[in-house]
């Protein structure tokens, strides 16, 4: 168990190391110079050289990478005019564009992405399990058909298409909802939910399909298991069989999936955030890529990596916890 944890963390560190190395390598290959953007219009070559030095991008890339690693482990000091700024470990550096610490930027954006992911996950779990159970029981043939169709359609619509149509319908045509703009939960929970409703639905449409399919498969499989048959043979009421036994068996794999899905929505909802103008981690990345803001790009990718690895680990533990047949190795 402890050994497993160590291996897992070791693997994660390696993955993150590789990712950051990859990004620095690409940055080195790219013809772009972030100092030009910072220096602004009419920047003379002499001035550019000074700015490059002040930003620390005149060092060779391997040296810059070494600085980055040092900062991550031990923190770093940056020149900042009259005094120096200390960036405590884990230091991801300062944004080229805004001079803010990358960790601050990430912490600032994370609640938005988390709000988006949580809401979408709750919504899609509820809808997915509901639809999956109903069609899994095969009580109503037509319902099964509809769920089947929706599941297929769910796979066939990209999230930005759903988003576009939702905006077109609810904000432009019917004008039932305002164009989304993020309001923090702590400021106004109602406005928070109202503004996030469309992005949640857009994401949930796709996620629901997967959950419905999984639930249905689980239900059908467990219903054919021996112990259910035994229970039936003992004359247990059907409702009790379904809710107590079949559902539990069907939902276990789903529970373990949610951790991974949460992490992946949180970090890869770039499209949804762009579409709905939500200032989340994804939007931060898109902006940073456009501005050649390497510290932010690396920071977002690191965060993404950490979340995904963490989620996978949690999923494994959950799986082992709910299913005694699984052993962590």
């Amino acid at each position, binding site marked *: 168990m402890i050994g497993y944890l160590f291996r897992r963390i070791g*693997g994660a560190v390696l*993955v993150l190391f*590789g*990712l950051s190395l990859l*990004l620095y390598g*690409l*940055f080195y*290959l*790219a*013809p*772009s110079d972030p100092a030009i953007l910072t220096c602004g219009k009419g920047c003379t070559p002499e001035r550019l050289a000074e700015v490059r030095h002040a930003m620390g991008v005149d060092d060779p890339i391997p040296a810059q990478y070494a600085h980055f690693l040092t900062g991550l482990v031990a923190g770093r000091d940056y020149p900042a005019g009259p005094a120096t700024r200390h960036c405590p470990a884990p230091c991801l550096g300062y944004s080229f564009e805004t001079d803010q610490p990358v960790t601050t930027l990430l912490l600032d954006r994370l609640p938005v992405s988390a709000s988006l992911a949580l809401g979408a996950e709750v919504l899609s779990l509820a809808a997915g399990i509901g639809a999956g159970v109903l069609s899994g029981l095969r009580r109503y043939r037509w319902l099964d058909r509809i769920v089947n169709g929706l599941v*297929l*359609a769910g*796979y*066939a*619509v*990209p*999230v*930005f*298409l759903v988003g*576009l*149509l939702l*905006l*077109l319908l609810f904000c*432009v*045509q019917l004008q039932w909802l305002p164009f989304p703009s993020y309001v923090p939960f702590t400021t106004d929970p109602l406005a928070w939910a109202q503004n996030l409703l469309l992005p949640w639905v857009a994401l949930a449409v796709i996620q629901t399909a*997967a959950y419905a*399919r*999984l639930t*249905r*498969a689980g239900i*059908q*499989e467990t219903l054919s298991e021996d112990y259910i048959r035994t229970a039936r043979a003992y004359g247990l009421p059907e409702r009790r069989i379904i809710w107590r036994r079949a559902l539990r068996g069907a939902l276990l794999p789903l529970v373990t999936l949610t951790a991974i899905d949460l992490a*992946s929505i949180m*970090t*890869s909802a*770039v*499209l949804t955030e*762009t*579409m709905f103008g939500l200032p989340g981690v*994804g939007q931060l*990345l*898109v902006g940073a*890529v*456009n501005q050649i803001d390497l510290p932010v*790009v690396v920071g*977002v*990718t690191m965060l*993404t*990596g950490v979340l*995904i*690895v963490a989620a*996978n680990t949690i999923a494994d533990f959950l799986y082992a916890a709910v299913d005694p047949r699984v052993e962590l190795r």
Partner: protein
Amino acid sequence: MRALRRDRGFLFGAAVALLMVLVAVAAPLLAAAAGQDYTTYHDNLLDSARGGVPLGRLGGISGEHWLGVEPGTGRDLFARVVHGAQTSLGVAVGATILQVLLGLFVGTAAGLGGRWADAILTRLVDLVLALPILVLAISLLAIVPSNWPRPLLLAAVIAVLGWGGTARITRSETLTLRTRDYVAAARLAGAGWSRIARREILPGLTAPVLTYAALLLPTNMVVEAGLSFLGVGVRPPTPSWGQMLSSATTWFRADPMYVLVPGGLLFLTLLSFVLVANGLRRALDPRQREVLLQ
């Protein structure tokens, strides 16, 4: 095969998918048949004072412009949509082929190689599967010089980031296949690993890899559309459905046709490929019946 012929969903999907492929291949011919091309501007068909919305109803539909014209430029929407099919399908197909090749190579190497090769390659596959594809694709595509051939680049980037699934399936299938008697027989007969891989293992991989690839295709299409939507996909004037939808976001109410035409086609095409994949899986690979689509 008989099962497939009775699968109405599959038949519908296959018909639509085939039609789309034909449209994509024959795009220049179709545009020519309509008497249009995808680059010519028709400024006289636009209301410039209102930002360049097409004059006339339904986005300027007329006998000349079957689906109307593009707002802001007046380029023929039909010509752009059929050429867009070429881009979207081309990139998706290219990426899928690359993914399958990469996945097959790594998967069989892992399955047939020694313990160490297997361990290393499996870790590599795990790593690739853990990559945040969209995030990395955006970073990669933004860094690459803009004058590289874009569709090829898109296919390559999508493939490089997304071959993990194929490799994983190939590996597990290979591990099963290598224990079969005929493989053992070939080995006893002195066949080398590469020969065994080609002669004995590959035929056995066809069904599972084919069904998986059928699912990869629409997934790749979604990724391409998404990247083009975010502005890191193909470059104008080359049309792509995702990029059309992206520019359509500013024309919601002023010209809904511009959202609905590429959006509807994208949906229909994706749906048809999913139906085909679904049908194939049911027919070819009953064991995977309810596996979650990745």
